Structure formats: structure tokens, C-alpha cells
């Protein structure tokens, strides 16, 4: 069974701080996605990484896929209150995505 563990589970920070969320597995994934979910809504795709070692930047968000394609990280620079939400990583398994356990981020003004 493929599992994705995210850490930390919960993060509460002040606006302007930096943070990193980790997504780890013992399994290799052909690609990995990051989603953000806001209260009362479904998750929305932020990025897909497909190559080991790949780094993608989306404004203040930096995503990295591990060299061995077993782990990933999401780094947010100068967090804003609008970054508040549940962050989910998802690895491409056989015919379906395997979702991580989630990291709940709260950014306070």
C-alpha cells in the first residue's frame, strides 16, 4: 500500500513568516501533485512535479520533488493570510492518486 505522510499536521504562523511543508513516502511515484483546499470547497491543484530533483516556483510558493521521487516539499515565503488552508500532496499511483495526510496552515495577521 502506498502511503504519503505529511508534516507538520498543523502549522500556525504570523503573516510574513516563511514555512516548509514536507511530504514523504517509502514508495516511488511517477509524479506528485500539490493541492490546496479552503473551507467548504474541494481541493484545487497548485502544481505537478514529474522529474526527480525538479523545482517549480509559483509566485511565493516553491515546490521540490526529491531526487528519488519518494518525497516532496512545499516552501512558502512571506506567508499571507490568503495562504490559509489545507495543503495536500498526492502521488500518482496505479490508475489513481494517493493523497497525503494533509497539513493545515493558519496564517494570522
Amino acid at each position, binding site marked *: 500500500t502506498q502511503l504519503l505522510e505529511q508534516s507538520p499536521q498543523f502549522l500556525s504562523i504570523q503573516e510574513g513568516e516563511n514555512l516548509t511543508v514536507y511530504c514523504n513516502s517509502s514508495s516511488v511515484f511517477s509524479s506528485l501533485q500539490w493541492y490546496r483546499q479552503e473551507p467548504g470547497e*474541494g481541493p484545487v491543484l497548485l502544481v505537478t512535479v514529474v522529474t526527480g530533483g525538479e523545482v517549480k516556483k509559483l509566485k511565493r510558493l516553491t515546490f521540490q520533488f526529491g531526487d528519488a521521487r519518494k518525497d516532496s516539499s512545499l516552501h512558502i515565503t512571506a506567508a499571507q493570510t490568503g495562504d490559509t488552508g489545507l495543503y495536500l500532496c498526492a502521488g500518482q499511483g496505479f490508475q489513481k492518486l494517493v493523497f497525503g495526510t494533509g497539513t493545515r496552515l493558519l496564517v494570522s495577521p
Partner: protein
Amino acid sequence: GAGVSQSPSNKVTEKGKDVELRCDPISGHTALYWYRQRLGQGLEFLIYFQGNSAPDKSGLPSDRFSAERTGESVSTLTIQRTQQEDSAVYLCASSNRAWSSGSYNEQFFGPGTRLTVL
């Protein structure tokens, strides 16, 4: 609308009753997924439909859970004899590309149905 829609948005039921949850995927999307999300947690895969292939039911937690999909359109998730532990948000997602080795797909999610079993 162009997105995935789900109904009802909220459902409160009594223990032991049956419930039906509906998902309307994005038109033309061949793949449809159901997930369960308990409060504050990640997504738990339930079932996956891909075109006319047999569905992948490997995530259904018990035989009280079943789902159907008509062609490449609407899907219903049925929970029989509901239990309190079934309380969760049920999310539906659709995707416009068939899975193939080495490929990846973006899933578009609906807003979910919040189910509360009293």
C-alpha cells in the same frame, strides 16, 4: 456551470437510514472519483470510474457503500444503513484524461457533500 457539482451540499440523516449523494462531473471527463474526508484530515479514496471499464472499488470501506455511474455522466454514491462513523465530507472529482503508465492527471473537485449521521 463548468465545474464539478455535487448535491446535496449538506445532508443530515438518522442512523440506519440510506442516503444517496450525487455528482455531476465536468462534461467530457472520462474519469470520476469519490473520496471521503473526515474532519480536518486528508482524502480517503473510495471508488474510481474510467469510461466503460469496471470500476475500481478497492477503497469502499464496507458493503454498505456502493456507487454507480451512467456512461460518462452523473454518478451516485449510496450508503445503506448509515452509521455515525460515516459522518464526513464526500468529495467527487473528475479528470479529462485516461490513466496510462507514466502519465498524470489533474483532478477537478466538487465542493463536497457534508454528511452528518445522528
